[in-house]
């Protein structure tokens, strides 16, 4: 047997800054307690089946002894008799054995698979009483599982202390089901820098490390762990020495945050007197509070997908309008940039379960989806135009890849305004309209597209992904996702140059805008506005105040000659090295 404790470290990707120390809590993708999966050699399968049968027998003995102990409670004994019968039910018992044998997996995993399938059938039932019958099956399978594993695992719904969530991956739907106040930090096996887990963690201002590969297999529930979201590291079973060291680092970091937050409400003016607006990206209306706290100059990206997720019918206009109005009123007179529905690969709308797409990133998503479903699109645009009567609203169309898409979107926007006019509802059509530049074709066509809009907003997460053909959630290639790639820099430059030429503004709302070492570059390229997660705002404002635009422009001349991301990064380090040293919690490396 291995030693019960002993410090070890896991290296991952820093997705949200900060440090936390606490107990691990393992969940799997469905938000239920994790069950190990491993393959069993063919000749050992009969042994695995035997192990399962033995667990069933022990569960049977347990139930039997409860029945024997309570002879008077007839009602109770009745249901327990049913539980006894369920233990040997062919859909549970037989199917589990079949799964062990055909898939060659361990008994725990086979049982879990079988029960998940049964549970999903019950979940779709309308009759509340019959739906509840799933609990009988769950109860029985839990007692088998307990006898297989040997311990009773607690349930996620019962967490009453603050823990660090350890999962393979967390989708937007998963995170929305977890009681987030109970979570100190996130760590996941999968995911890259800009994954949803990181975005949620940043919004909650808790640390997250992703892409750890083996976190769920090497960490057990209740292990003491330290999550260093600044360095992208997790320390399991820390020694006394590590604990002391990280307690200190944690305090240092929190102090630093307090210092930079103090002057965050002042404008970000460069040393040569140019104002750069530093805006916030938000997903939930509730985040507006942290936008104000951190001194955001407005909202550069309000993602609107959240209201469409985890539900079976789409939100109606009134519901959308109320939320938008809350945000717009709260931020007024500062601008709120509302991006229209951008359903993407990892944010599926639950009532749109059509056919699975082999390649969702290139599929029917975002503006393509909205133009295909004008009713849904018009409903949202009416809500946006109505909210615009209460403050400073800009509308932003995502994933524009062709000229006709922005023409059609604007036609529908006029149609939405026309219908509001006819109904006599208060609205404001006089709002700025912009497009996300996140598909390479939009960069190439930027001069045409500029005719139709008031501003461009560069979405670097997707632009980099599409331009470099890198899935940033795939840990095998995530390291190739390089914002400083010369190809990416040239694309941004093309967009910025066209915008200047056509007299429209150019903004950036991807994660690229939140990293210290990108700022000299972005200023040199001529970005008018940067938008990022709210808690990065104070730091980035500070960085901007220490730079001069004219220096940054001169610096860009050198950058444009570099042939590799590494070369660009070295140049940044050479010219702005001292700046990087202050980059607490900001991504290192290039």
């Amino acid at each position, binding site marked *: 047997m291995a030693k019960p404790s002993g410090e070890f470290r896991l290296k991952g990707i820093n997705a949200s800054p900060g440090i936390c120390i606490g107990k691990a809590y393992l969940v799997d993708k469905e938000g239920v307690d994790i069950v190990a999966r491993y393959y069993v050699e063919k000749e050992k399968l009969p042994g695995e089946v035997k192990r399962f049968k033995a667990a069933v027998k022990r569960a049977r003995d347990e139930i039997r002894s409860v029945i024997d102990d309570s002879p008077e409670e007839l009602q109770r004994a*009745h*249901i327990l*008799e*049913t539980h006894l*019968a*369920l233990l040997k*039910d*062919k*859909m*549970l018992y037989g199917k589990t054995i079949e799964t062990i044998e055909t898939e060659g997996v361990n008994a725990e995993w086979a049982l879990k698979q079988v029960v998940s399938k*049964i549970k999903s*059938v*019950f979940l779709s*039932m*309308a*009759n509340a*009483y*019959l*739906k509840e*019958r799933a609990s*009988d*099956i769950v109860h029985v399978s839990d007692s088998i599982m307990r006898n297989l594993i040997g311990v009773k695992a607690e349930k996620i719904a019962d967490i009453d202390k603050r823990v660090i969530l350890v999962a393979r991956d967390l989708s937007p739907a998963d995170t929305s089901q977890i009681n987030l106040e109970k979570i100190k930090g996130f760590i996941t096996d999968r995911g890259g820098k800009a994954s949803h887990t990181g975005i949620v963690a940043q919004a909650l201002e808790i640390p997250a490390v992703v892409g750890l590969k083996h976190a769920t297999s090497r960490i057990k529930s209740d292990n003491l762990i330290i999550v260093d979201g600044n360095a992208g590291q997790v320390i399991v079973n820390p020694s006394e020495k590590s604990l002391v060291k990280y307690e200190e680092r944690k305090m240092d970091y929190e102090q630093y945050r307090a210092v930079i937050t103090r002057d965050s409400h002042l404008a970000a003016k460069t040393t040569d007197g140019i104002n750069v607006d530093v805006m916030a990206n938000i997903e939930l209306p509730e985040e507006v509070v942290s936008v104000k706290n951190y001194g955001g100059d407005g909202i550069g990206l309000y993602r609107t997908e959240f209201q469409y997720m985890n539900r079976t019918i789409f939100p109606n206009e009134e519901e959308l309008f109320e939320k938008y109005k809350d945000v717009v009123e709260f931020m007024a007179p500062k601008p709120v940039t509302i991006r229209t529905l951008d359903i993407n690969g990892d944010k599926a709308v639950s009532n749109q379960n059509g056919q699975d797409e082999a390649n969702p990133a290139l599929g029917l998503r975002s503006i393509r989806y909205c133009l295909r479903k004008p009713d849904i699109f018009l409903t949202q645009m009416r809500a946006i135009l109505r909210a615009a009567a209460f403050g400073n609203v800009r509308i932003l169309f995502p994933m524009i890849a062709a000229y006709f898409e922005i023409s059609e979107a604007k036609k529908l926007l006029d149609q939405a305004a026309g219908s509001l006019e006819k109904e006599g509802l208060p609205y404001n059509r006089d709002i700025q309209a912009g497009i996300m530049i996140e598909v390479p074709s939009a960069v190439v066509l930027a001069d045409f597209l500029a005719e139709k809009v008031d501003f461009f907003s560069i979405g670097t997460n997707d632009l980099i992904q599409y331009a470099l053909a890198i899935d940033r959630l795939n840990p095998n290639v995530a390291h190739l996702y390089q914002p400083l790639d010369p190809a990416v820099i040239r694309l941004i430059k093309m967009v910025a140059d066209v915008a200047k030429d056509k007299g429209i503004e150019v903004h950036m709302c991807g994660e690229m805008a939140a990293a210290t070492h990108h700022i000299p570059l972005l200023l040199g390229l001529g970005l008018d506005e940067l938008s990022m997660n709210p808690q990065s705002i104070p730091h980035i404002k500070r960085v901007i105040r220490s730079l001069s635009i004219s220096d940054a422009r001169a610096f860009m001349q050198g950058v444009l000659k570099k042939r590799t991301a590494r070369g660009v990064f070295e140049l940044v380090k050479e010219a702005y090295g001292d700046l990087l040293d202050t980059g607490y919690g900001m991504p290192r490396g290039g």
Partner: protein
Amino acid sequence: MKENQELQKVTYINNELGLHARSAARIAEIARNAKGAIWVVKDDERADASSIVDILTLACEKGTKIRIIIEDWADTDILKAIVDLVDNGFGE
């Protein structure tokens, strides 16, 4: 065995709570003694009558029309016993 060679009877769930775990267990108990397969069918969905879990997944509320199907003529008594049980509301 083909569809037209099966024997079947139609009945209605009349106990208050519908076909729940305990009642399903009683059907399954009887069905387990059959020679051939016994099916509980609601609309077009069929469940193995010897499995409580399978019967429960049909979600039969009070008033649901179900068909009990046997595949072997030797199981006629079992068919009758199950239909009687359902007709009597499982004695509840």
